[in-house]
Structure formats: C-alpha cells, structure tokens
C-alpha cells in the first residue's frame, strides 16, 4: 500500500536554514544540507525547502544549495518560494530538485501551472495554497497569508488540478503556528473533491494531530516544521504511533 508521507519543511534564507534547530547533534544547524541528511536518516519521506526571502539576486545561492542537497540526500525534495518562470523551474530541476512548489505566481498567472505541467510533467508541479476561513468560506491568501483574495479555496484547488498540478500543499493560515491540529474538515473536502495527492500543512502540535489529519483529514502527507526541528516530535516515534493506529507508513 502507498504510505502516508511525513515531510519536514525547512525555511531557507540566503542558502541557510532560518529557524533554530536543536533536535539532534548537528555540526552546523544552519546548514540545510546537514539537516536534510539527518532527516533522511531518521525516516523523513520527503523534504520541502521554502526560500522565504527569494529574490532574483539570491537565486544563485539557492541553486547552489539545491545542488548540494541533491548530491548528498537520497530522498525526494521540493523547492518553493519566489518561483514564477519556466526558466527558474528548469534550473531548479536541472540542479536536482524533484519538485517545485508555486503559490502566488500561480494565482497571478494560472497558465503557469499548465506551462510547467506540459514542459516538466505534473509529477513535479506542486501548487501551494494558503487559505483562511472568512465567515463560512475558505479564501485563498497570498504573500505568506498576508494578502486576502476573493478566490475560493476549493474552486482554486480544482482549477489547478485541471491545469495539471500533480499535488496540492494546503496550509491553513488559521491553524499555522497554533499547534492545535490541522484543518481536517477542509482537508477532507479537498481530498474528496480532487483526485491528486493533498499535503496537510499548518497546526501540527502533537502525534494525535497527525493521526487525525490522516484519518479525518484524509491527507496523503503531512508537513510540519518546528515540531520536528525542535525535537518535540521525533519522526521515528511518530511513525511508530501512526503504525499502531493502522496508518500505513514507511518504517
């Protein structure tokens, strides 16, 4: 059976990890490559690198990091942040990234999803969607959740699937940082309405939250940052618990 995936997310700025990391003995906790290797060893299924300060000027630094990760890490990884052109995606994939994640650029120009899927294949196109519940509906937000739009989460997700996205990375801005659990109702609805994998993001605080997002939220993968980086939830322990709950994981 296809397993549920556990995905640590590393925030990157100028080729270095941003948030402090103290989960394990690392020579250099700011080095994304060191960290990525450790995560691969302890059983992470995939990694996401999010360039949180992406600019044209530091693109070379990020590409350099991507090539070093690809050299040393033997599990798949996705790169996101500030990606808006075919040329940029081409460079990332050629440097060894397995997938790219696009967000605001897809909202600004939805044809980008088609262009990337046609040129590189759906399997490497992840569309990240940040959304927040406004009244009773979920609205897409841009620029790290700071700019609201009138776009409905479910309609947008359906549209990008039709345009060729291979996967959706859905972050609930209402849950992100709260450590109170994932947005399982919205996740389950996405999973029912779409036929591509859904990654749950935002709200991981304890092991039960992961169990819930796989069972109730029907997520295909769960992404988290601080609970992994600070060793609050060791990935091997998490996977053992998930397995006990009859959730298929790779151990």
């Amino acid at each position, binding site marked *: 059976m*296809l397993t549920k995936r556990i995905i640590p997310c590393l925030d990157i700025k100028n080729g270095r990890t941003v948030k402090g990391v103290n989960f394990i003995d690392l020579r250099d906790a700011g080095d994304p490559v060191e960290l990525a290797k450790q995560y691969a060893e302890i059983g992470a299924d995939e990694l996401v690198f999010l360039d949180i300060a992406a600019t044209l000027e530091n693109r070379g630094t990020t590409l350099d990091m991507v090539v070093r990760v690809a*050299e040393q890490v033997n599990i798949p990884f996705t790169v996101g942040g500030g990606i808006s052109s075919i040329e940029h995606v081409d460079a990332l994939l050629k440097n060894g990234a397995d997938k790219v994640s696009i967000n605001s650029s897809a909202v600004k120009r939805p044809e980008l999803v088609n262009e990337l899927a046609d040129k590189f294949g759906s399997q490497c196109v992840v569309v990240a969607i940040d959304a927040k519940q406004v009244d009773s509906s979920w609205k897409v937000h841009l620029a790290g959740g700071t700019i609201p739009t009138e776009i409905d989460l479910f309609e947008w997700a359906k549209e990008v699937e039709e345009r060729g996205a*291979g996967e959706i990375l859905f972050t609930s801005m209402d849950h992100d940082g709260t450590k109170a659990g994932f947005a399982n109702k919205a996740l389950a609805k996405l999973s029912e309405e779409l036929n*591509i994998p859904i990654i749950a993001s935002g709200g991981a605080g304890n092991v039960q939250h992961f169990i819930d997002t796989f069972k109730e939220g029907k997520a*295909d993968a769960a992404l988290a940052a601080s609970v992994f980086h600070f060793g609050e939830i060791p990935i091997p322990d998490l996977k053992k618990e998930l397995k006990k709950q009859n959730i298929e994981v790779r151990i």
Partner: protein
Amino acid sequence: MKLVIIDYGAGNTKSIQFAFSRLGYDAILSNDPKEIESADKVIFPGVGEASSAMTMLKESGLDKLIPKLKQPVLGICLGMQLMCLHTEENNTEGLGIFQTNVKRFSNEVKVPQMGWNVIKDLKSDLFKGIKEREYMYLVHSYYAEHCNETIAKTDYGINYASALQHGNFYGTQFHPEKSGNEGAKILKNFLEL
C-alpha cells in the same frame, strides 16, 4: 567501470549521477552512440511525458540504438515505460523491449501515485539483499501490466509490474536513486550484474 546515463533531454539525470557518485562511481552523461555502446553499464532515465520523450529519442536515433545494446541497461520510471511495447500516454509506441503495455491508473485511486510503496515477489539479482515488501519511492500516472518479464510487483488500485527484466534489459518504475539506502543497494546491485 564505464557507466553512461543516456542524456536525451528528459529526466532528472543529475539525481541519478549523484546517486552513483555516493556509491563511488562516476557516471557520464551522453547521447553519443559510441559512448553509449562502449559503456559497461547503461542507465536510461526519464521523467516527464512519453510522446515528447519518444520524439527526442527518435531525433537522436537512440530509439534504434537502445534495443541493440548488449550490456546491462537499466530504465528508470518513464525510461522503463518507454522500453515497453506501447503506452496509453498520448498513444505512444515504445521501444518494444519489454513485452507488455503501459496503461493509465483508474481514477479510483489518486493519480499520480506519489510516494513510498512496497515492492514484492522479487525475482532478480537486481534485488539481492533487498527484503520482500521493501519501500521504494514512486511518482507515476501510468503503470506497466504484468507479463512473464515481471520481476517485482506493486499494488496501487491494481497489481502491476514495478520492475521488469528481459535478458540484459532491466527496468524499475520506482526511483532507486531517491529511495534511500535500500534504493542505493539496488543501484549497486545493477553495477555488479
């Protein structure tokens, strides 16, 4: 050992090159028939869409060369699918090395299959030291149907061939170069064939 990765414009050649370099081997990227023919081992990668990959192969004449190779050849992902008779992806004729066809997963499962799944009923030296039901990383929307060349099976809605072998030709639907330490073992086994 001379190890050549066929470079025809499709695929994550870098990841495969790095995977071999982690094993201590330098793999050469090439589309030069002489380089490919003189290699001890050949890797046929592929990521992307079948018909455009096939067009690129034809443009470089590699579609004629690959089936004639005598040394061990390993097709990975789309590379393996293109070595089959035919794929439903844009109704594309393959190289006809593996006597089977490639179909699209039904919509009863999420497509693409993306992530780690088990390989079982392993029968080839390619899997020496790999345990039954080991996890491998897969990303694909199309699958090869079983035939008597199946050397590994995987379930995803349907039970399909996740690896094939015909004489000196091997193919894996999964990505050994991205499948952690166990995937690396399979690459090492290929080098030792």
